[in-house]
């Protein structure tokens, strides 16, 4: 797409454009995304995001995997928050089977998914700081994230791809030491959030770089189908945990933080406040953790669900993750479609980046918090 044609800027100045390839290997594209930017000087006239560099075709692979084997592949979509991928797939499959998950497993699912939301937002905090140039918050946020990963290691054994939420329940139970350790982490983490606010959120240079950059109005956000903190940053209050509560979210009270103007800073600050709400949810969930068994009865080794279709969606840290599952009665899902929030959030870049400077591209792209594993599936 070499477009070196002449353009006339509004000031009547004739400038020739330069095609810059912010290619698959770039320090701040958060993975393998290629942005074809047509620059006039430092201002962008046309942006063409090119994806597919991490397309592994998992939707095709799942047509020859049994339901238990599919859960493993779901970890690798949004690898920053693997727990919510598992949850979305298991909710959709349980709707297909009609199984009822025991209350203790539901509470454990809520605790694990909220901890995963905190860990995923901490990754954003760190890498967004690096994109804007502040290299130190990355180290502090990853130090807190390490503590969450220790908690996951204690109960489900893995650090990143947990495979913990299974069909009909949860894989392993947590021992009493885990609850004490988790409370210790929450106590340690609350003052850290205020520390990040002083370190990065209200830093004058950071504000100057993100305050009124990449503004998305409510209508464009809804028209482009954004979801999650990107939609709530523009002020549209749509959270799947509130609109269609699953796994018992209606028992916990938490607010949904909204942004004021839809700028990069609002999307970023929505995530910081969401972490505070997640801490509240985990505390309430740990307070009255029901007892009982972990897996629903009667989930066979090779499950063969009745023919039919099911759609379930979950509030993943990056947006509204939905799984559309079709079964023809066979051992493998006949068709599985993932409504990937990052894939849909990324499409708006073509419209948002026009007229921005090169430095703003990084600020806007970072504020969308995309993970290429989920974009390309």
């Amino acid at each position: 797409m070499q477009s070196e044609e002449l353009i006339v800027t509004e000031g009547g100045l004739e400038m020739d454009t330069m095609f810059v390839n912010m290619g698959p290997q770039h320090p701040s594209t958060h993975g393998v995304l290629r942005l074809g930017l047509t620059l006039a000087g430092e201002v962008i006239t046309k942006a063409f995001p090119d994806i597919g560099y991490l397309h592994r075709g998992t939707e095709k692979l799942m047509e020859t995997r049994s339901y238990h084997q599919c859960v493993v592949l779901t970890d690798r979509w949004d690898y920053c928050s693997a727990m919510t991928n598992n949850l979305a797939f298991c909710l959709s499959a349980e709707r297909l089977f009609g199984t009822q998950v025991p209350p203790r497993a539901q509470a454990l699912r809520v605790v694990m998914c909220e901890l995963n939301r905190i860990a995923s937002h901490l990754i954003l905090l760190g890498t967004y700081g690096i994109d804007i140039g502040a290299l130190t918050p990355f180290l502090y946020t990853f130090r807190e994230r390490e503590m969450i990963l220790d908690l996951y290691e204690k109960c489900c054994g893995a650090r990143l791809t947990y495979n913990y939420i299974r069909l009909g329940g949860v894989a392993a139970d947590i021992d009493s030491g885990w609850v004490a350790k988790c409370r210790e982490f929450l106590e340690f983490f609350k003052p850290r959030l205020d520390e990040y606010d002083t370190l990065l959120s209200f830093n004058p240079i950071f504000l100057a770089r993100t305050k009124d950059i990449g503004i998305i109005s409510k209508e464009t956000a809804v028209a482009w189908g954004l979801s999650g903190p990107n939609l709530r940053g523009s002020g549209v209050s749509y959270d799947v945990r509130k609109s269609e509560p699953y796994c018992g979210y209606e028992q916990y009270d938490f607010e949904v933080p909204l942004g004021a103007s839809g700028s990069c800073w609002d999307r970023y600050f929505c995530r910081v406040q969401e972490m505070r709400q997640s801490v509240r949810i985990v505390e309430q969930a740990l307070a009255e953790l029901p007892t009982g068994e972990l897996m629903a009865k009667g989930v066979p080794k090779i499950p063969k669900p009745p023919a039919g279709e099911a759609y379930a969606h979950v509030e993943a840290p990056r947006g509204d993750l939905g799984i559309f599952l079709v079964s023809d009665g066979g051992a493998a899902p006949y068709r599985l479609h993932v409504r990937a929030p990052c894939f849909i959030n990324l499409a708006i870049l073509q419209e948002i980046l026009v007229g921005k400077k090169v430095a703003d591209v990084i600020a806007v792209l970072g504020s969308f918090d995309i993970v290429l594993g989920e974009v390309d599936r």
Partner: protein
Amino acid sequence: MRAEPAASAPGGEASPRPVKAPLPTPVLNRKSGGRLLTDTRFWPTEVWKSPWSLPRYRAGAMWLAGIVLGIAAAGFAVGELAVWAEKLLALLGRTSLPPAVAAWVWVLIKLTCVIGVIVVNGLWAVWWERKISAHIQSRFGPMYAGGFHGWAQTILDSIKLLLKEDVTPAAADQPMHLLAPIMAIAPCVMAFAPVLFGDELAAAKLDVGVLYIFAFASISVIGIVMAGWASGNKYSLLGGLRAAAQIVSYELPRGFSVVPVIMFAGSLDLAVIDQAQAGYWLGFVPRWFVFYPVVGQLAFIFFLIASVAETNRTPFDIPEAESELVAGFHTEFSGIKWAMFFLMEYGYVLLSSFLLAVFFLGGGAAPLPFLDFIPSWIWMVSKAMLMMFVFLWFRWTFPRMRVDQLMDFNWKILLPWSFANIGFAGVLVYLHRSGWGPG
């Protein structure tokens, strides 16, 4: 993980179950006194009374004190050697060498000293920055590269860089690609001529020292733009053009913020500026230009900001902004050519910190009267290192500004204020001339 074998279960229970083989004893972590591996997991939540109660904290403090005293002792030793320098000069004079050749040999000796300072500073500053950045970010810096705290890290880095393959991209403009690093590092070395390393310790005694330094310091921007253009890579072209805009526009406030100092000292010669700051007010406040009522502090801050921008360091490091333009103007340079740009950056950081020390912190003058016995060059080097610490510390705490914000800040805030500061200096000099101002 039950360590004890099942046989030790209470005897009374009739155990139809076969006695299981006892679990193998787990592998204990020898270094941590035999505790299980998982127990050694350390969470930052463990709060201890005070850091001094930890033995390794006290050991670290002792090491630090030892290093500082070692440097002070080395200072005395070298101080005595300075006497030998006079004898060496006299020896040169008395030998049968004609005076012109003797002068040339003396210039060569001074030249090797200055180049030695820049190269050794290159090694020291990179290691120091990696250790500072590590400890700011709650991690260890280089630890294993050559023994205690990775002291040989940068020496090994430079040897490796010397032996890297020298890649010149096909799309590059070959001669310019080779010339760019030379054009970048040469002015930096030449700018070090009049820099004062002690009360009279300067390579060349120029009475237009300040003018000379600023003239040569701004030539290396040509090298950067040449690097940006010559490597045929769109990112480096953007980086080179940004560097040209930034360095040239920050030259102005840098020059104007030094004018009050020159007005107070009355001459452009660094030695005279240094002498003008000897002595103390009211017995203990040193007569440094930074302590002049309003003018000193403002000039110090403006010069510091402009020097940070001059050396392309955060928050002004847009020419080699890592997250935007892959590696800015030195994207296509590998091996020793890239090391030249790195050396230039740390050379200018050293130059700026020495200038800050001379102009504002009374280079060579002891802060308190009774500390006069320490030689002047130790005060100069310690003030320069303090200023270099400020430069390095900026890089790990500030985010990066955007190109137009950076330009607005310079032309709309820094430059007008430095003009105003010259006005205040004029008022101060007038008050001083009419008898009752400070100094």
